[in-house]
């Protein structure tokens, strides 16, 4: 028996979420009194691989194959299910991001394993195996019992703190035989986002709503984000109007994020918007209407005109950065 964790890398480096996943897996393994096996697919060198050991991985399976350069969920699920069987894993931890969402359900069918998706805490109970998961777009959390022998948990991004638990991890290289007939996805074009901080990875997010009034007023908001090392985001009407790109739309029908700090400027705080940001650790609201619902979820608030508050805030940040 072991806990298996699927990590992700980008340009040869592990994404921060990989360390969150391993920290989480280590927590689960402790409860089960067992070990953690981490799987890494793609070109990652040994110095980087061994970093997974800092968070408690006991064994690292380093998989390389030219058939794995395209994310094809069928191929990935077939490979992972083989590793699960070989490692005799009883709990599998995957991120609840786009990649994880494409792999977890296929793995579930292959292993007849129930899925607890979007978990944000360690299991509440082992017998029966009960997890804590987000439901109703953040308006409720459920205690979900998983009845199958093998369990798959997808971890909400940014919901679990990194915990250093150094272990002497061993690395096992694997060059798997891959059934080429499963590979059906053909990539025609890739448009990588470059130079900007990924919204779903960002620790700080500065977000604007209809209160920003027009596409032309975004200068100080973007500057504030830059100074704080933050990503920028917006509410749905803003991206619908074309004031900001669609990638920035957060909420029920946009991106779901959980940064440490979310600064909402000129955003009223509609339920559908909150659905995407309510897991943020801290929320700051800047709004001219003292009755705006966003203040009910914010820890810090400034009542005022965004056009006047933002430039002052920018100056104040410059002051402390000196």
């Amino acid at each position: 028996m072991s806990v298996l964790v699927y990590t992700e890398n980008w340009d040869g480096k592990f994404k921060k979420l990989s360390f969150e996943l391993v920290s989480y897996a280590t927590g689960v393994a402790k409860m089960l009194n067992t070990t953690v096996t981490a799987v890494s697919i793609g070109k990652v060198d040994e110095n980087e691989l061994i970093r997974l050991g800092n968070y408690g991985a006991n064994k690292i399976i380093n998989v390389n194959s030219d058939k794995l350069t395209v994310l094809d969920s069928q191929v990935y699920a077939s490979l992972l299910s083989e590793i699960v069987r070989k490692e005799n894993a009883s709990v599998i931890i995957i991120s609840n991001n786009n990649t994880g969402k494409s792999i977890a359900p296929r793995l579930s069918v292959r292993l007849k394993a129930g899925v607890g998706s979007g978990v944000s805490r360690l299991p509440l109970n082992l017998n029966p195996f009960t997890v804590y998961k987000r439901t109703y777009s953040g308006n409720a959390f459920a205690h979900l019992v998983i009845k199958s022998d093998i369990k798959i948990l997808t971890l909400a991004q940014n919901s679990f703190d990194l915990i250093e638990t150094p272990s002497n991890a061993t690395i096992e290289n694997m060059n798997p035989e891959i059934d080429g007939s499963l590979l059906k996805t053909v990539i025609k074009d890739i448009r990588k986002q470059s130079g900007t901080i990924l919204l779903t990875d960002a620790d700080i997010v500065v977000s604007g709503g209809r209160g920003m009034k027009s596409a032309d007023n975004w200068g100080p908001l973007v500057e504030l984000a830059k100074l704080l090392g933050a990503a920028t985001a917006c509410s749905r009407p803003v991206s619908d109007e074309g004031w900001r790109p669609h990638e920035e739309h957060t909420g029920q029908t946009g991106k779901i994020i959980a940064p440490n700090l979310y600064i909402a400027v000129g955003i009223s705080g509609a339920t559908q918007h909150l659905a995407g940001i309510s897991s943020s650790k801290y929320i700051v609201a800047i709004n001219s209407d003292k009755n705006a619902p966003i203040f009910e979820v914010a820890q810090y608030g400034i009542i005022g005109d965004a056009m006047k508050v933002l430039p002052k805030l920018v100056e104040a940040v410059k002051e402390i950065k000196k």
Partner: protein
Amino acid sequence: MKILVCISNVPDTTTKIKFAEGNTSVDTTGIQWVINPWDELSLTRALELKDDTTTGVKSVTVIHVGPAASEPTIRKALAIGADDAIRVNAVSSDAWFVASQIAEVIKKEQFDVIMCGIESSDYNGSIVGGMISEFLGIPSVSAVSGIKFENGQPIIIREIDGGKEVVSVPVPFVAIVQKGIAKEPRIAAMRGIMMARSKPVKLVEPVQVDPLTQIVEFEKPTPRAACKFIDADSPALLLDLLQNEAKVI
């Protein structure tokens, strides 16, 4: 080319969720049921593809796993423009159960494109679409924000963590769609509502499947501390709190 759109019905997105029976279920009194927002968008895109005669899309069918009480949701989808509907007559107990039922139906009736929303706004599972494709052993593309056909071949845009990819897969396949797939959900016109009454809804009895998961309790999100207000003229005070109290900058 035939498209199948999977639709789930969910409480209206502004609903204040309340619990019943000792927090073991959600109190459904007074809840307005709507088509899950992503499913509504995928239905819209499916209908746009059918309207475009160059795509070869001939029909759009919707499928729903639910009891008779969810019939209005199906009628709404028909009013928006779906040609026909299938209802698997069962209470949906978990994703495994729902995906098994839908996969069984697809095995018997051929569809070229199966569309599912990335998640339902109630269970936030993000699993049904992927399970269907694995039950059927066909390709799936996740986080799809665009879909069109060129010479009968699907061209799909998928969102990856850090960009977009344009990909193609052979039919039949499952498209798991998200934002961007269609601009605005299509709204039922009076004529559509009239026509929906006479469109066929096929009733299918469920196959025996045991769910793998079960919700045993609900709880409210942990309440947040009350908001501290800072004077609009002293932003430095806000920064001080963020640095020294919250420790987030």
